[in-house]
């Protein structure tokens, strides 16, 4: 898209409106906010993976300097405070419901993971709270932990109402059809993969500051949330049992989320509850160690895959059996992520006539696991794109050509998959071809040979993905177990002077909504982008909203904004028609001006806004004064971004280090509003996928201690781990939203891990290596090389 061809409108790489405050240090994150008289809370967390709490002695701590209160699970129970709820449950194979155990905000009687919240120590200063915490004595009866996911079912039972440690046992697809395809296959490809456990690590640690106002018996909670309205709903209605109107939730600047800040956590609930009990503001800021222990983790699946091919190497069937680690409690979207957001994606961008999958969600004594950038789709894409490569190798085909011949052809849309989804539109060959060209696929063997001459193994790996964004529609989601709606709201308020305020229920924590959304409005209204203000993140200012996750902000929230703007234009046309004494139908709106067709009569948008608020000459019989419109948009379908990512690596056999030397990708996100911002999302997503594939791994030892609980042990991608990325696009516009957009926030993280692992396997394939698990650390790679060499020598 030519940069700047449309000044500040849709399609222009407008520099971000929000940048200045972040660049000058005037961003306002939760931890930056202080309220007069605020107290500080420090949480004593479980040091055991699994234990009964026998006694808590807090007298000495209570008498320590500065201590104002010490709360335990008993206090929470005495006040009847509820816990976080699961926002989406599924029906089991046998028709029974998901087993939902209680989740108290402070442990009551038992702890179930290292980091579980046991005691809240509240003091005048944080240091005093931490010092007093040292004086609290807790007697634990230590129980056997459940850490090994593969055998979680035979471990000691963690929750009374979760027999066999199985929260749910979900299935989708036609088991008999998949079995028949496998039975009659010319080739059966089998693969078992582990989707490694990740810790989201948004750079801003979670934080909360709650204040109670006795005059109107109301609370204000500042919190690091991706969806303040849901936080208000959960804390208000389910935890504190107060009217929602008595709780204002503000999510100010938020320093990244990637899913981890969707959920309502115990800490923010404790702050809110305690602020009334103590009649003083209560603040909590996580340190990074707490983020590692108690933020919801991501991924952690074991997937057994069987794929059937006919004699022409066309895919005829697929069966996937998944065991998903859900952790110690059911976090808000922990059930939907490995089921509804995973199983329906198993068709990928391929025509697969028969698919069946079973997903068992297991309880373990580890931190709760929930959606992390991509949420279910990366797990589906990983296993599928790995098995595609395995299959291509097994039948001796080029992996790109094997994919191409199995793609859903472009004339097959709308395409109904055998796993519930109907893809509205797509065209998978152009992005594949473009990406192959961008990386010079044809020239690869020469590069491999050149690397070999330097003693390096070079490999190339592809991943052609599809994903589903903007989870929808509400009615279907409800039938599948969702407990929330999946629409988005927007209010567009035009001021008398023609400036525009847009109130959106989505939340920006790095995605650049202030700019992207303003571009949509500026483009549609023909006004300057500088006169459009985007307001989000405050439950008192926004009608209602679902927040930002699942790459839904633009496809759902942006679509709602576009609808609200359309309503503003419709009303303005009537005002303009009245002012120009014309028929409504004769008024045309373009470039910010209302004209009467065929005349040079015109009114500027500002003049109409003024007339709406100073309605001296106004169609009072037809319209109310004012110019403010609200729209709720409930999408008709998911959107389906797709594309191909290609990684090229070089491996040093003496160290096992995998160097990522090149990356090319071509994505179809539908229409682009701001290509610069989209590209940034792609870069960031790829980096997180590279982290998963090469560096990151959350590891609990057999006693249930989190071994990787700091940046010393959990390896984050740094600048020198990554190359520059080659990014390009193709466009098939989404058919069911007015903007034709699909969403771009997660694609990079979804597409990239299998591309990388396929590249690593390709590099080592000449040695006979056929498998590699994530993360492909130097040690693992070095061992694989050595084992292969030893085997060859024998």
């Amino acid at each position, binding site marked *: 898209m030519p940069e700047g061809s449309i000044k500040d409108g849709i399609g222009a790489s407008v520099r971000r409106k929000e940048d200045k405050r972040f660049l000058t240090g*005037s961003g306002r994150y939760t931890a930056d906010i202080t309220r007069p008289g605020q107290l500080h809370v420090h949480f004593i967390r479980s040091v055991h993976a699994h234990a009964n709490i026998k006694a808590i002695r807090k007298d000495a701590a209570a008498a320590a300097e500065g201590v104002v209160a010490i709360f335990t699970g008993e206090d929470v129970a005495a006040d009847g405070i509820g816990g976080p709820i699961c926002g989406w449950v599924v029906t089991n194979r046998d028709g029974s419901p998901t087993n939902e155990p209680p989740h108290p905000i402070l442990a009551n009687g038992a702890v179930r993971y290292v980091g579980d919240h046991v005691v809240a120590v509240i003091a005048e200063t944080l240091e005093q709270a931490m010092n007093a915490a040292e004086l609290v004595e807790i007697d634990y009866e230590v129980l056997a932990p459940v850490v090994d996911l593969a055998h979680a079912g035979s471990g000691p039972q963690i929750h009374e109402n979760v027999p066999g440690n199985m929260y749910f046992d979900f299935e989708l697809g036609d088991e008999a059809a998949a079995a028949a395809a496998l039975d009659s296959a010319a080739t059966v490809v089998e693969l078992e993969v582990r989707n490694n456990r990740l810790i989201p690590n948004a750079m*801003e640690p979670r934080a909360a500051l709650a204040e109670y106002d006795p005059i109107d018996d109301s609370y204000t909670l500042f919190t690091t949330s991706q969806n303040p309205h849901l936080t208000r709903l959960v804390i208000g209605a389910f935890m504190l049992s107060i009217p929602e109107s008595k709780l204002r939730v503000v999510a100010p600047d938020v320093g990244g989320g990637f899913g981890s800040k969707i959920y309502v956590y115990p800490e923010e609930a404790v702050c809110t509850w305690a602020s009334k009990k103590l009649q003083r503001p209560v603040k909590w800021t996580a340190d990074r160690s707490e983020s590692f222990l108690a933020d919801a983790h991501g991924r952690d699946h074991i997937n057994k895959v069987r794929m059937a091919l006919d004699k022409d190497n066309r895919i005829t069937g697929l069966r996937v059996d998944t065991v998903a680690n859900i952790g110690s409690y059911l976090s808000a979207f922990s059930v939907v992520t490995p089921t509804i957001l995973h199983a329906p994606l198993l068709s990928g961008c391929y025509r697969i006539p028969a698919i069946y999958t079973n997903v068992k969600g297991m309880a373990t004594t580890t931190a709760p696991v929930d959606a992390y950038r991509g949420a279910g789709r990366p797990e589906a894409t990983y296993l599928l794109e790995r098995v595609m490569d395995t299959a291509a190798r097994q039948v001796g085909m080029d992996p790109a050509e094997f994919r191409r011949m199995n793609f859903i052809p472009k004339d097959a849309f709308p395409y109904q998959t055998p796993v519930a989804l109907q893809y509205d539109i797509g065209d998978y060959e152009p992005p594949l071809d473009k990406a192959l060209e961008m990386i010079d696929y044809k020239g690869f063997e020469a590069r491999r040979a050149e690397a070999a001459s330097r003693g390096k193994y070079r490999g190339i790996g592809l991943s052609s993905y599809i994903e589903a964004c903007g989870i929808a529609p509400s009615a279907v989601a409800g039938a599948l177990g969702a407990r929330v709606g999946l629409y988005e709201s927007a209010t567009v308020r035009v001021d008398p002077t023609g400036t525009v305020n847009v109130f959106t229920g989505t939340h920006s924590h*790095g995605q650049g909504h202030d700019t992207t959304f303003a571009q949509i409005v500026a483009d549609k209204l023909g006004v300057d982008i500088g006169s459009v203000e985007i307001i989000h993140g405050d439950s008192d200012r926004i009608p209602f909203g679902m927040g930002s996750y699942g790459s839904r902000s633009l496809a759902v929230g942006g679509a709602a904004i576009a609808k609200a703007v359309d309503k503003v234009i419709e009303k303005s046309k009537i005002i303009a028609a009245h002012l120009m004494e014309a028929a409504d139908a004769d008024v045309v709106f373009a470039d910010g001006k209302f004209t009467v067709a065929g005349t040079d009569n015109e009114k500027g948008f500002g003049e109409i806004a003024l007339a709406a608020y100073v309605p001296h000459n106004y169609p009072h019989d037809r319209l109310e004064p004012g110019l403010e419109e609200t729209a709720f948009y409930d999408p008709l379908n998911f959107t389906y971004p797709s594309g191909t990512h290609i990684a090229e690596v070089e491996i040093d056999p003496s160290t096992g280090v995998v160097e990522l030397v090149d990356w090319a990708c071509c994505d179809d996100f539908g229409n682009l509003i701001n290509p610069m911002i989209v590209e940034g999302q792609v870069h960031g997503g790829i980096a997180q996928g590279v982290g998963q594939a090469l560096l990151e791994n959350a590891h609990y030892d057999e006693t249930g201690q989190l071994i990787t609980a700091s940046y010393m042990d959990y390896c984050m991608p740094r600048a020198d781990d990554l190359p520059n990325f080659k990014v390009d696009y193709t466009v098939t516009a989404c058919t069911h939203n007015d903007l034709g957009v699909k969403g771009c926030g997660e694609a990079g993280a979804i597409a990239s891990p299998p591309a990388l692992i396929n590249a690593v396997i390709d590099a080592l394939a000449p040695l006979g290596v056929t498998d590699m698990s994530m993360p492909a650390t130097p040690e693992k790679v070095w061992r694989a090389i050595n084992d292969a060499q030893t085997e060859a020598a024998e």
Partner: protein
Amino acid sequence: MTMVNLTLNGKQVSADVPDNTLLVTFIRETMGLTGTHVGCDTSQCGACVVHVDGESLKSCTMLAAGAEGASVTTIEGIADGDSLHPMQQAFHENHGLQCGFCTPGMVMSAIELVQDNPNPSETEIREGLEGNICRCTGYHNIVKSVQAGAKMMGG
């Protein structure tokens, strides 16, 4: 308690703080300049980078008392009134930030990097920023920003 006197963004400041107060706490809490961030507790992330006597430093690794008499510059102190520092401008032009949380530390590290090496290569930039973690950008546009910032700073 210790009396700490230092120059903060060109202004003379002093405060009586507990002996174990970290420089980052002094900046954020005692002085209320919240542009400097805290992203970790193991001195690994670089969100807290400031300049102490012109050298970039993770302000979570130093006691406030250790900066006695020093000149400390934070992200709030580098723009010239309304006009951004060239490095800030370069990050804006090149989309070098998303959520903005790593940004102050990243910009402060980048400025020092370019002061030491006015014409850094891509590899030198990537290695030079190894102490700053960004979870959002994938670094591609940060590297681009630093290259552009170096040019604008006269490299």
